[in-house]
């Protein structure tokens, strides 16, 4: 068997055991929607909330005859059911509600990093947002992107600490996770709007996920700005390389159809690395029998198909398929290949991977090991964020480190270096290490630094303090290294 044939075979196997990779248009019979009861809502809502009713009128939903009741109907037993004008409805239209028609998309997003956005951070949330911020910040900040655990109170009102909310991992009263309206602005649900980078920017901006700025500073963003009118954003079929070639948006690479690659609502599926962790790792994508998914670091042995392992939320799940990091990278590269050569694509990925590895080896791992030592030796209290070094360490990987790695992944030179790794380095050398000395005392600190930092080639230059360079004005006129 030739290697290329083997590759192709593997690819087919992956795609056939994972049919959710194929996006489909709604396959529900039109008789299933257009509930006559919904027609009665419109005339009053045209007056009482004319804005949203008129948005709906412009939507593909309205065009197809999908009305208020089709999405908002509920059954009496539903947790969040309320009676409104004699009808039983729910204010929140959850992904499960949308799945009455959009089954494929629902199944795809189930278990994705998006729909698990609450579960992933829930146990960490109190220590930062709770202690450093407060409940008000959790409700109006964190939860607005990650999603809230929506609480329906006994008096039929939605708890204002948890609602309004359209966070992507929202835990809905019906138990489903996610919020379609996080990206698909209600009640218009415009394809074009969801394909715009701005659909992602509400959350993917700011220090730890500065993807808006990175994209705009990249060549892709540059092309998009210049040729937005050629993006066919409103087109029914939206395959990169076929329906548009001007530029990729966030959706193109992370979810969109490109060539033979099908669109998919699992946004993290094509990501090989974890980039928002203290140390990046390549990740398996584990797909469970029930359609849920989970990331698993490649340093662990991959779970066997059919075995039972615990999912992100702690419950047990039977493994249906495992996509290796390499597979995931290959899926991403299929997008690149629509415009770039294979050599360019692979070399770009090499540059990106090298930045991730550099961060890991030079800063991420040593900083993590030193913090670990400080905690075990009782030099730091176990409580996070009550000592200055904890903020320094947090920003090192969570803000600056993430920015460097995201910058390299999406080709913004500026974010990779000046806004990213330069700040990581400055932080590491001028704030983190001096803090270590202050906390551990010079003797213990020098052992720690020798063990975890200067023993590595990356930091060898620290051992040569006599080696001058004119960059800061010292010995100007003399050759460097003279």
């Amino acid at each position, binding site marked *: 068997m030739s290697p290329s044939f083997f590759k192709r075979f593997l690819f087919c196997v992956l795609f056939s055991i994972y049919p959710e990779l194929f996006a489909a248009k709604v396959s529900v019979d039109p008789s299933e929607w257009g509930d006559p009861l919904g027609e009665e809502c419109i005339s009053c809502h045209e007056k009482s909330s004319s804005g949203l009713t008129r948005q709906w009128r412009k939507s593909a939903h309205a065009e197809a005859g999908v009305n208020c009741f089709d999405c908002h109907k509920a059954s009496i037993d539903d947790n969040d059911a*309320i009676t409104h*004008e004699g009808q*039983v409805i729910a204010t929140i239209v959850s992904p499960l509600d949308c799945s009455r028609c959009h089954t494929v998309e629902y199944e795809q997003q189930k278990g994705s990093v998006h729909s698990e956005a609450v579960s992933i951070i829930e146990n960490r949330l109190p220590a930062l947002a709770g202690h450093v911020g407060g409940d008000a910040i959790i409700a109006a900040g964190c939860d607005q992107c990650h999603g809230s655990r929506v609480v329906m*109170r*006994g*008096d*039929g009102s939605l708890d204002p600490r948890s609602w309004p909310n359209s966070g992507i991992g929202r835990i809905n009263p019906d138990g489903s996770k996610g919020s379609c309206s996080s990206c698909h602005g209600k009640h218009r649900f415009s394809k074009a709007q969801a394909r715009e980078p701005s659909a992602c920017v509400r959350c993917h901006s700011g220090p730890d996920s500065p993807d808006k700025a990175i994209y705009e500073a990249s060549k892709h963003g540059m092309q998009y700005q210049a040729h937005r009118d050629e993006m066919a954003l409103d087109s029914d079929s939206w395959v990169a390389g076929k329906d548009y070639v001007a530029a990729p948006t966030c959706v193109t690479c992370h979810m969109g159809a490109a060539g033979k690659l099908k669109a998919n609502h699992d946004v993290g599926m094509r990501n090989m690395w974890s980039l928002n962790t203290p140390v990046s790792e390549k990740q398996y994508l584990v797909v469970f029998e029930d359609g849920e998914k989970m990331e698993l670091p490649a340093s662990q042995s991959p779970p066997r198909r059919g075995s039972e392992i615990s999912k992100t939320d702690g419950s047990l799940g039977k493994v249906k398929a495992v996509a290796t990091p390499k597979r995931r990278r290959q899926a991403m590269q299929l997008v690149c290949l629509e415009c770039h050569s294979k050599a360019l694509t692979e070399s770009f990925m090499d540059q990106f991977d090298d930045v991730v590895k550099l961060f890991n080896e030079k800063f991420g791992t040593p900083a993590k090991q030193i913090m670990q030592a400080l905690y075990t030796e009782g030099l730091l209290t176990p409580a996070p964020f009550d000592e200055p070094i904890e903020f320094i360490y947090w920003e090192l990987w969570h803000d600056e480190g993430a920015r460097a790695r995201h910058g390299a992944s999406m080709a913004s030179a500026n974010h990779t270096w000046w806004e990213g790794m330069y700040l990581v380095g400055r932080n590491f050398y001028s704030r983190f290490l001096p803090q270590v000395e202050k906390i551990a005392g010079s003797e213990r600190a020098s052992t720690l630094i020798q063990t975890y930092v200067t023993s590595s080639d990356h930091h060898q230059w620290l051992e040569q303090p006599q080696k001058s360079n004119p960059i800061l004005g010292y010995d100007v006129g003399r050759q460097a290294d003279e």
Partner: protein
Amino acid sequence: MSKWKLPYFITRQVLIALVIGGIAGIGFMLFLIEFDDLTSSEAFCTTCHSMEIAAQAYRESTHYNPVSGVRASCGDCHVSEGVIAATWDHILGGKDLLTQISGKLFGPDYDDPVVNALHLPQAAFEARKWFRSKDSATCRRCHVLEAIQGKRADTNAIHLEETDGKSCIDCHINLVHRKVPDEKTFKKDRWRQMVEEEFGLEPGSALDYLSK
């Protein structure tokens, strides 16, 4: 003597009885009017502590604090207009008084805020049924459908065009007292749970209050 003569059966005694009866009758009617008036007042209703609990939410509401200063009192909404209907409503309301007293003697004690909160939905459902049976007559004492302007542009149009076959109470619940869901989607357990949280009770312990 004049030609005009009283019938033979109108004797002096009958005449006196009629006059006294008439005055007594007028007196009784006046009494009823005064009685209805007095017993419709917030001051009277809240002599029972259980009603004072209901009044707390009312005092936060627009019906207590309208910009116009036209304050609706308990009876303005909960007692029908006209002396006969009002008296009848008060006779029916006597049931609540008996429940209040028997509750004090044998339990459950509606003056206990927990018991009161637990029973509130039932009271709300009953009150809504009463409003519906009267076609929200007491609302319409003050509110004239055609004249409702509201603050938003289309409030008037909604009231003119979208209210066929509907009574005020069909849309306007939870205006004055503590919010209670519609009976159709009311969930007893969830209400109980909410009350427990509110009063810092152990989960499930509200059941003891109900049997008290």
